[in-house]
């Protein structure tokens, strides 16, 4: 019995020894997570999230390129309405999925000379995100943003767009200057594998974009910024070749958000808008004042004439898709589901797959779509900055006389921009490729030629081409449209419009932000120059 007793006491003392929290620190260290990770891999995540995946509901519908007739979750720019589920998309994506990561990279590489290049790359990518954010919302958290962990700042203050733009311009300028002055080559970079020259072009092209944004709000700053971006040699410093495009090469794992939407449950719900189709078709009176059929129409669009449902929209059905430009019909802007169903009058008599004797009645399922099997596959790439966009900006800068550029240069940049976009189509899918002959024919025609040296005549042409070339990058298409006012789109006629003016000028702050960062949002609204509403113009658009 004594033996049992002693075992007993031993057991007791075992439970008490040696201290009541021995080993707890080790126990509370994760065995399946790392406390450190090469920041370049974090930058890759920020890069993927910078893709304009979220611009479908508002931006692309506002600029009347591509939209849904559906109400509910898809409601937004198609009806000029506030959809609180979607207005925060840019906010949440760029702050959470880009700036959270770029901030981490910047903080961790700032004082690390060997990672100087990575530091500057992260600054450029972050500046790109901030531009989209302020272009979308106006006043936004800038200097204090992204510091939830690193600075323990949970509720950042806002800054006005007027204050932010010079800071973005400084940031990009410093980053471009800093690149290549020392430090490792960041081969883990998924965009350019650490190629310094390409990153510099990215930075300068972004700088050009930022400068051109300000032509109305601060012309001097705009001119100076554009001059700095060109740096005396546009070809050396800017993205003028598709090989240098800032491209997100989506793959089966990191999919194209647009492609995912139209290859999933919403496949039958998105249609190309009537103004877009009509302009590319050269229908008289179109927003681009075009007169010829654009070869890009065939590359982009498909129409399942006679389809009665989403299920009918297959290549194998009786309504097999037509890519013929003549067959393309765009969905009237602002039409709701029901109205679109009854727009049979828009279809040619007899339709594509009917006969004059037995006409098929149209419904929304047979409007033209962006081809989900070519241009918007799940694996199709998306572009942040392209050679086409940069050339068009240069053309405009030249017309405005910035950086000493001439009209002749403007005409060349304009013409080259169009060709660059035609060539870019092949990057989406081989099936989107445009032949050199078709490209050159179009570019040599009136659509590819700046008519004369007048700014007033050139801007509609440039604005129209920039619009077409920015398809699928709604952020940029919308920002440029607001800045420039071209193409001359007609206001969305939907009767339920919640916009006092003609177009949506900014998106409203997220409800969540108003809820948790209340005081700072209130301060920010005071700097907007209008209510926190869709109709309030941002600073550079005023």
């Amino acid at each position, binding site marked *: 019995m004594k033996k049992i007793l002693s075992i007993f006491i031993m057991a*007791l003392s075992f439970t008490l020894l040696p201290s*009541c*929290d021995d080993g*707890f620190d080790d*126990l509370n260290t994760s065995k399946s997570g790392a406390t450190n990770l090469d920041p370049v*891999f974090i930058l890759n995540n920020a890069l993927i999230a910078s893709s304009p995946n979220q611009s479908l509901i508002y931006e692309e519908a506002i600029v009347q390129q591509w939209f849904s007739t559906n109400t509910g979750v898809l409601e937004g720019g198609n009806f000029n309405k506030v959809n609180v589920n979607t207005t925060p998309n840019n906010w949440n994506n760029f702050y959470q999925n880009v700036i959270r990561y770029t901030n981490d990279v910047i903080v961790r590489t700032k004082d690390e000379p060997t990672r100087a290049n990575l530091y500057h790359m992260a600054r450029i990518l972050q500046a790109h995100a901030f531009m989209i954010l302020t272009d979308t919302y106006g006043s936004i958290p800038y200097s204090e943003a992204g510091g939830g962990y690193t600075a*323990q700042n949970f509720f950042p203050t806002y800054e006005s767009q007027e204050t932010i733009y010079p800071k973005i311009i400084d940031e990009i300028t410093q980053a471009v200057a800093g690149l290549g002055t020392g430090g490792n080559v960041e081969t883990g970079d998924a965009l350019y594998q650490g190629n310094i020259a390409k990153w510099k072009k990215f930075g300068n092209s972004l700088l050009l974009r930022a400068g051109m944004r300000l032509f109305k709000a601060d012309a001097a700053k705009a001119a100076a910024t554009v001059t700095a971006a060109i740096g005396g040699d546009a070809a050396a410093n800017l993205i003028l070749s598709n090989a240098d495009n800032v491209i997100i090469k989506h793959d089966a794992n990191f999919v194209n958000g647009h492609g995912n939407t139209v290859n999933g449950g919403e496949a039958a719900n998105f249609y190309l808008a009537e103004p877009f189709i009509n302009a590319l078709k050269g229908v008289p009176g179109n927003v681009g004042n075009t007169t010829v059929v654009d070869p890009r129409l065939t590359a982009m669009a498909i129409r399942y004439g006679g389809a009665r449902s989403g299920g009918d929209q297959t290549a194998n059905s009786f309504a097999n898709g037509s890519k013929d430009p003549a067959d393309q019909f765009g969905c009237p802007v602002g039409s709701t589901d029901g109205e679109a169903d009854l727009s049979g009058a828009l279809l040619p008599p007899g339709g594509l797959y009917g006969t004059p004797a037995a006409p098929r009645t149209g419904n929304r399922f047979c409007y033209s779509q962006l081809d989900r099997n070519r241009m918007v596959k799940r694996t199709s790439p998306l572009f942040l900055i392209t050679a086409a966009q940069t050339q068009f900006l240069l053309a405009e800068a030249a017309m405005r006389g910035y950086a000493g550029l001439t009209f002749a240069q403007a005409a060349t940049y304009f013409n080259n921009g169009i060709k660059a976009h035609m060539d870019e189509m092949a990057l989406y899918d081989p099936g989107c490729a445009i032949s050199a002959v078709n490209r050159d024919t179009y570019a040599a025609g009136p659509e590819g030629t700046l008519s004369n040296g007048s700014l007033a005549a050139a801007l509609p042409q440039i604005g129209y081409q920039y619009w077409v070339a920015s398809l699928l990058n709604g952020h940029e298409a919308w920002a440029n449209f607001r800045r420039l006012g071209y193409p001359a789109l007609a206001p969305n006629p939907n009767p339920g419009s919640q916009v006092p003016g003609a177009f949506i000028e900014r998106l409203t702050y997220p409800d969540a*932000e108003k809820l948790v960062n209340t005081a700072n949002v209130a301060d920010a609204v005071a700097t907007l120059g209008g209510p926190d509403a869709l109709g309030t113009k941002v600073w550079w658009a005023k």
Partner: protein
Amino acid sequence: MGMLLLLYGQGMSQQMELYAAIDKPIDASTRNGETRISALADISGTITDENGQPFPGVNIVVKGTSSGTTTDVNGKYSLTVNDDNAVLVMSFVGYATQEVALAGRTQIDVVMQPDVQSLDEVVVTALGIERSAKSLGYATSKVNSDQLTINRSPNLMNSLQGKVAGVNISSLGTGPGGTSKIRIRGQSSINGQNNPLIVINGVPVDNTNFGTNPGNLGSNDGNIGTRGGGATTDGGDGLTSINPDDVESMTVLKGAAASALYGSRAKDGVIMITTKSKGTTKGIGITYNMNYMNDQVLDFTDYQYEFGQGENGVGPASPGAPANPVTGQWSFGPRIQPGMTQVLYNNEVVPYVAQKGILNDFYRNGSTLTNSISISATSDKGGMNVSVSNMKSDGVTPNNTYTRKTINLGFGYDLSEKFSIKGNINYSNEDNKNPPVVSEQDNSIPTSLLAMANTMPLAVLEANQFNSVGGEYSYSRFTNRTNPYWVLSRVRQNVIRDRVFGNLSLKYDITKWLFAQVRVGQDYWSRNQDYTNSPTGKNNLNQGGINSATPGFVNGQYTQEARTFRETNVDFLISATKTFGDIGVNLTGGGNQMYRRSDLNSVQVTDFVVKDLYTVQNGRLKDPTYDRSERAVNSLYGSAEINYKQFLYLNATVRNDWFSTLSPENRSIVYPSVSASYVLSESFSAPPSWLDFAKIRAAYAEAGSDTDVPPYADKLFYGTSAAQFGGQPVGNFGTTIPNAGLKPMRIAETEVGLETKMFDSRVGLDVALYRRITSDQIVNAQVSNASGFVNTRINSGESENKGIEVMVTLVPFRTSNFEWEFIFNGAYNETKVLSLLTSKDGESITVGNHVFNGSVQQIVGKEMGQIVGNGYRRDDGTINPENLGKIVFGADGLPLTTSNVVFGSALPKWVGGFTNSFNYKDIIVSFLIDFKLGGKLLSGTNFNAYRHGLHKASLEGREGGTLDAGGNDPGKVTGVGVDINSNPNTASARNEDYFSVVRARALIEPVIYDAGYWKLRQITAGYDFTKFLSPTFPIKGLKLSFVANNVLMLKKWADNIDPEAFGYSSDNVVGMESPTVPTTRSIGFNLNVKF
């Protein structure tokens, strides 16, 4: 104190035990016969109960020997003794054991009296310490094991709905094997899970629940669920692996004082389960129990059947209109008239007639058959009990089955005078096949069925599941609404769990008044789960077929998961009990080491090489994850009890916990409790004769918890994505800002109570009042997204629970043959949020979202669990005061909305039930009516019924609209209200647009309901056949009872649903109703045979 529902045989005696008068002097036997005898003698006699009725089955043993007998059905017995000075010991459970010396007599007649000491029943309290009930300063409820065994459900706790005051049990509409949601005294923590601790034989076991939790934000429990979407099923909880037959007793410890000794883990109360470790009588006993329950689905829908499938008045192929065959989820078609036909999605032409009662047509009758057999052996030194059981449950969803096999061994043995050993081990194997996907859109049968166009014949859906390429044949343009038959044939899930838990304790009586005990317990389970998140050919993954987005592959997603869990508890206890004159003292000290580890290996694959082959190697993109989580709590504790003359008790406890999840500065925390109990009826020298028993009690306790702090919450950890991008790794980290400074949350609870028995125990009352403050709660504080993050955990929240629990027992009628007993239990609980980040009224956090629209928020100054969302915009009366409050319509004729309208708390305020039991001779019949009142719900079912044109309200304005080109009438609704200029509204909208506004504008106001109900929950009838059995017959006891469960809905306020039918176990989505498997009415029987 106990709440008895089913009273028969042994159960009846326990009833006597529980409600008997107390502490009157024992009026022992009445003695007849004076004949003296010597040596061998035959003794006989009759034993009667306190009412003079013959008492069968009483044990009679000659003291000091093993010889004995039992009384027959007439209460008679006879036996032979060889010593005329022998003493007979008569015993029966629940009755006072009597010892009668023969003193030379040959006939001994005895009147058995209920065990008046039994109000001083022994209650198993924290750590398995047994205490006399009257000494307790806090509320406990003892649950009779009959309540668990007769009315069965695969989850043991569901049989207690409406029966225990202050305990709110919800069985979820998620199929057999699903979670049981238990809340004691309401919800205290503002986050997710407020589950009580489950303790088996003194040692905590795991009750992790794998419930469906979509929309549950921020809380840890959200991480437990499945991943990948499309497979939101309820994987059950820890209680499902317990066989009710093995339960000897169950005690519910409600307040913090009761559970103080469990410290951190018992903030929501404790359910103490003691399993059987010996038989009820000496020797070998064999018991066989069979239980069968049949479940029939209940259809609460009251839909419209005047207008059939279609949209905007256009039916599937209305005359002159374009064919519109893909409206399978819409009932906005033309008026149903005799002779009409419709062209369905498969081009089949069928009559256009209403399809009523599809729930009953689709679902089958479920059934549950449980067989268990147990063998017990009992001796002076101890005993053992072994049981084997098999339960097979067929869910009402035709492909859903759940089987459970358990083996349980319990034993106890006195190794010597001083040294004893006790232990138990339980093994269970559960196999849950195809638990139904609920409360979501994709792959969810309930969601599709409850919104199915009202003229869509099920037979067509069943016959036309597949399109020409073998994918889902889309019957509706709403491709997230999967064809229910396709779900049955293609959506697969298997959950298999093996679990072993048990403990072993050694006790040593050092002296008569001092013992020490060491106990080791472990709960271990492994759980394998695999499911097709998206079966190959799922329509909305790719229009028209099985072609994958990635060329060369077929679409789909499949996940395989393996989890293991281990919790070990080692504890010791030293306890001393001594009496000094009128003062009795008990001192107990001990310590516990808890260690818990869970591991998860999960592989999710997307896209397949070979169609319909669901394996990991067949997948294209593989996303494996491994997760491991460990935590430990070390504790030291002690308690002291002092009593004066056994009518005044004072009890104090103190516990110190050390938490591994918290930083060194914050990880140690001490919490005390004090309680007192004063037995009035014993303190009086001459209590009034009508007062049998009276006690008042009071308690104050503190406790703490780290349960809302996950391990590793103090640091930022990096991870990498499964796939590379452009040949390069992609890094990531979480969106919650780590906080190294977290402290445990604190609970302080004050409780007072009164217990009394009067008038020969015909009137009983037990009342408890409590107030609990839960502070330093871990709030998942939402931060500005511009900080880059979503939230951070902080200690901040404070809430208050206040409530009263009442139990009234009445015996309005009692004769020797007939008794009517009435028991009411009811609890009122109110939980208020006192502070979140600040204590500013109106400050709120969102803790969960509805699948469609609406959310659950915690709002300072309001009750917990507020349902918040868009309401109608109401005229503010500034232009015309008369229009104040009227609904405002836009130019399009649709109502405008106001965001963030608070519609009220989803938590019920009143929960309780009435039991009436009637006992005529040996027939016992009882019924239970229960209720939950005072909460709100947001009905997703009605949300769909509105927008799909099934709700009767949507009949407004079906006709009278502007005819379309095909002559179809889309209807016209002009809402009653004003326009934005406060003029009467004249704008009208098409009928479908008007009722779709719930979705288009996220308007939830029309589908907010009072969640209350009154139900006839249960009817039982039982009869004990034992008295008809000859003593020589091998069967010693035979009881048969019938039970009907969920018998009748007496009153409810929500349209089209059973307000109880919820899919979620988390409090973060409380009140967020979304279609579940229908509730069922169960009818069955229980047969209990003793050999």
